């Protein structure tokens, strides 16, 4: 087993808890600790060495749960309209539901940016940032069913028993800010699969995602137990001081015990987290101009929260677009798509511009996409079915080459045919950007070494900047 982190048999080390340092800290300020000293402690984390120099230090994923249709947005296919109503052999593929002939795409595309990449006119703001975006048009996955496809995208398998991508990131990279959870999941409600999507499974529990329903914008409502219902922080700091005095009294004459010290130290961090997290989730703290730039709505709020968390060192922020699966447009596809795009366009563009202005885009990888795409053929006349044969995602920042498109689907946008990218390949490439070798990021469990990419996956060098 080769892994970049401390030996995993030592959970304290894996938790990034240093030993002698913790002890000396405990001894140091006894009896004199005040609220101010507690809060002033450094928020550094335990960053692990990577396999090679990372291009990205953190990741934001914008998850269009339900699955958007590639040829509406980033992968124009005029042949769909040319052959509207027909069902040529190329599109005679079995998906979840019965489908009919090709359903025309009523949306126009504009060559955008200096790269001239075509972007749908449904996304006028996003057209302006396309030069920072690498469009991947040749994704494919294993199963055209939401649950298994969500698991594949998140956990690298179609079944819910493996650690999520984000927990692998944390396991591999450690945390940059221990006053915040390292892996945050934002959803204004619940996606159709739940905690399995951000589980740490057999990885240590500290690597699991912290799920936050941000439809309530009060930070106290977002994280379980973040703040006490009535206790003043000054009282809590006195309680922590008492705890430390008592622990020291009890350990008199005994050698220090790392496990006990670690728990005390975690108490101090928890105390600070109350304020650090409250601050990180405080959207009101943003200037009006920035709020305005992102726009309104849950998704806009999530994008802005994602930026606030990323700049504070949260490794992975995963944003689910909405409750349930809003992009699952089996009926009335075009009207729904218009509304959905109007909702994502501005925040998505604002996020990239904002990250760039702050110098964060260079080492923040942004991922966009659904668990699969949709069919060019119609379902029931005005809907589109799930499509795992071919779909589009995009990446931006974090060492990815902007203003390019990679891979291609067939002439109707149904099936990936050129430079095909399986989800395992996507995972391998993301880990690569984070400085991690997907074949060496392993964890020994139940007698085997596990990887995010199982026995598959290849890094795609063509899209690296």
């Amino acid at each position: 087993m080769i892994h970049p982190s401390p030996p995993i048999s030592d959970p304290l080390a894996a938790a990034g808890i240093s030993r002698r340092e913790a002890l000396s800290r405990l001894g140091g300020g006894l009896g004199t600790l005040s609220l101010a000293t507690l809060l002033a402690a450094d928020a550094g984390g335990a960053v692990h060495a990577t396999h090679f120099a990372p291009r990205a230090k953190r990741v934001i994923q914008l998850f269009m749960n339900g699955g958007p249709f590639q040829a509406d947005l980033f992968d124009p296919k005029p042949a769909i309209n040319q052959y509207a109503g027909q069902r040529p052999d190329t599109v005679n593929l079995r998906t979840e539901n019965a489908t009919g002939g090709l359903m025309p795409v009523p949306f126009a595309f504009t060559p955008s940016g200096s790269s001239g990449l075509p972007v749908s006119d449904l996304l006028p703001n996003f057209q302006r940032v396309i030069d920072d975006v690498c469009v991947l048009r040749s994704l494919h996955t294993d199963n055209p069913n939401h649950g298994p496809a969500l698991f594949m995208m998140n956990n690298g398998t179609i079944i819910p028993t493996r650690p999520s991508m984000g927990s692998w990131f944390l396991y591999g990279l450690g945390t940059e800010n221990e006053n915040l959870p390292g892996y945050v999941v934002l959803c204004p409600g619940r996606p159709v699969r739940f905690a399995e999507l951000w589980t740490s499974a057999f990885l240590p529990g500290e690597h699991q995602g912290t799920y936050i329903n941000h439809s309530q914008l009060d930070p106290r409502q977002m994280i379980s137990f973040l703040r006490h219902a009535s206790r003043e922080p000054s009282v809590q700091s006195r309680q922590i001081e008492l705890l430390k005095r008592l622990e020291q009294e009890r350990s008199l004459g005994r050698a220090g015990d790392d496990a006990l010290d670690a728990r005390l130290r975690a108490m101090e961090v928890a105390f600070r987290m109350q304020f650090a997290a409250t601050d990180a989730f405080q959207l009101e703290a943003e200037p009006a101009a920035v709020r305005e730039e992102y726009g309104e709505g849950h998704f806009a709020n999530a994008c802005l929260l994602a930026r606030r968390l990323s700049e504070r060192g949260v490794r992975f922020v995963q944003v689910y677009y909405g409750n349930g699966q809003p992009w699952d447009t089996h009926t009335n596809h075009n009207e729904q798509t218009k509304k959905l795009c109007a909702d994502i366009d501005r925040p998505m563009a604002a996020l990239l511009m904002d990250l760039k202005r702050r110098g964060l885009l260079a080492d923040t990888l942004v991922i966009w996409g659904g668990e699969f795409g949709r069919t060019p053929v119609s379902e029931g006349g005005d809907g589109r079915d799930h499509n795992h044969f071919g779909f589009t995602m995009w990446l931006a920042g974090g060492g990815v080459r902007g203003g390019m498109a990679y891979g291609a689907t067939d002439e109707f946008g149904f099936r990936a045919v050129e430079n095909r990218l399986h989800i395992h390949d996507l995972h391998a490439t993301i880990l690569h950007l984070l400085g991690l070798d997907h074949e060496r990021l392993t964890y020994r469990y139940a007698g085997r070494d596990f990887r995010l990419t199982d026995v598959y996956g290849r890094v795609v060098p063509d899209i690296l900047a």
Partner: protein
Amino acid sequence: MRIQLLIPLTALCVVLAAASARSDEPPAGQAAETPGRPIPTADDYAFFESRIRPLLVEHCHECHSRQAETPQAGLLLDNADGIARGGDSGPAVVPGRPDDSLLIQAVRYTHELVQMPPAGQLPEAAIAELAAWVERGAPFPPTTGPDLSSAGQPVAGQPIDIEQGKQFWSFRPLVEVPPAPAAGQAWIERRIDAYLMATMQTSGLSPSPRADRRTLIRRASFDLVGLPPTPEEIEAFVRDDSPDAYARLIERLLASPHYGERWGRYWLDLVRYCDVPEPWAGSGAAWLYRDWIVDALNRDLPYDRFVTLQLAADHVPDARVEDIAALGFLGLSPTYWKELKLAPGVIQVVVAEEWEERVNTLTSTLLGVTVACARCHDHKFDPVAQHDYYALAGVLASTRLVPRPLLPAGEAAGLLATLDELRTMQAQVDKLLAQNPVPPEDKTKADELKAQIKALRKATPAIDEPLAFAVDDASVHVLPDGPHRTMVEYRAGQAQDVPLHIRGNPLNPGDVVPRRFLAVLSQGTPEPFQHGSGRLDLAQAIFDDAAPLAARVMVNRVWRHHFGRGLVETPSNFGAQGDRPTHPELLDDLAARFIAGGWSLKWLHREIMLSAAWRQQSTPHADGQAVDPDNRHLWRMNRRRLEVEAWRDAMLAACDSLDRSIGGPPAELNEPANRRRTIYGTVKRRELADLLRLYDFPDPTAHSPARLPTTTPLQQLYVLNSPFIGRQAELLAARLQSERPADTKAQVSRAHQLLFGREPTVGEVTIAREFLAQAGEAGGEPSAVAEAWRQYLEVLLASNELMFID
């Protein structure tokens, strides 16, 4: 070769496998130049070198050559032999017949499973050239250098040597080696101690002094019942001068009905128990299984019987009706969604994933062998062949998850039929009433049906009988259901052998493998299972052929929970990749006596807890620390951190709010008013309660060999801010006030007795007084006093002493 559409997502198992072991395969190296085929000409070779080799090099060799780190699918396309032999799916080419050649089908993307290269189709011209090459007979120039294809390359696939495999330490019969005579006889209480003393002496170590009585009773109580002793129990034990005081303490705890709760929960981790399985798994009463486990342990049901009933209560002749609940071991297996609108091939993959999970849970729990590693190829490290995996998978492919009331078979069938009938009637009612508007005659019809439902329920006395998650024998078949759908069919009472899945892919079947036990653990050649699905045969083989291993694994689990460290530190992996025992002779001796004593777990607890080793202090001494800081030799007791269950239960017990009732339906743990023991907190497979999620409770989607304790700020946020902790502090404050009214020192003292089983030190009392005075006690105003005490007691509840046991 990478399978494009339906990738078997098995674990990372290193690709070392043999091609399938089918005996009708042509011997390697013959296909390319079969007699009767034209002998390749120089022109053929030139064609190959100019057109074909560059194609292979550019598009295929990355994954299919001896340069590849692990040749995918065992296929080598850089030598004639490799092309002829092919990979897991058989020969890559049929010389002269491009249309029948897998290689050509794959590059044309016409093969159902295999489409190569994975990143996209080759240009049409290249495909045509490859086809032309096969048409010519697939000529491949002889290599001039040494042929490396058989020089220990992984694809060569050495068959597993079973006899040699049986020599591995954990697969050998138990060897009883009496402990070496050692000095320090006075210290020795049990045979265990003699073994430990011998190795300590070899390393120049000496044992630690015996722990004091307070420590011992606290340690023993948490170990056996998961609850702290009451101050009264402590005082009685401390004052008891009789020589058998300690032995009686252990007996009392072993006889407690709370023993089964403590040890049952350990078992539930192994079998990924949950109260609420997947939404489509039905709404049975999972807790019947949990309660059966608790009760079986309390009755000290022999471990072999305990497991046999869990695997096959429906086949055990003298099983009681209640024992049907034991089938929850398999009955509560995770199931994965099967979307019947998808093709049968997709659903077969899902079903195969379920088998793997079940094989893994069975073999990891009971045998400490990671058999599931052999789903795609022979086990890389252990003598477990892919055939062994499918021999067990057949048992699970013949076992169906079913709801069953705990009633005699006839009555059970009757009740299930009635429930079916009621469901059908209810569905009719719903359909009638779903109309808008409801025609009057349909309204009448619905009312009649409702009356019939009511009458039928009334006429069925067992109607509210809870349904256990059980299993029965039925073979599962995934079949097309018309052109657009799939059905999963169970054939009741039937069993089936399943074909080996080449490289784990159910759509690529190999030999059919008879259901049987693992070869390496069988005495002689394993015989096919005889009884139905084979679950009973499997249980018998485990406790007959594999009894030594089964006993070693269970003894080690019990040892590990008592000492905080196993004799083998990988409790579910006794294979080559697992840990080696620190004390092999001790482990074998205990395992042999465990079997001889009728597989009694209570005997095992007694044997361990009456040892001098278990009664040592946990405080390290400098000599020991210098030689063996990890305490592998057990020269002291380990300080252990309580699991979340015991920690929460201890708080409830100390605050006098614990509901000690045993068994029954679970209760939501996120509800702060829940006062039941934590084992009765609702476990949802897909969403754990906050407390469980934060405190390292294992993911109930899979077997958990051991919990991995973590220390995180989110845990401490729970301590700081959760209503549960606040409520316990409040209850404890009220208790102290009523038991020791208006006496600060007495209250502090009582709090320490209740929480930590001891008196506070002078320093602790002083600190407490200072804090309380500052926090508002000094003023004497009742609400301020109460608040001061809440703050103080919250800190005591947060103390390490409540979470760590010496």
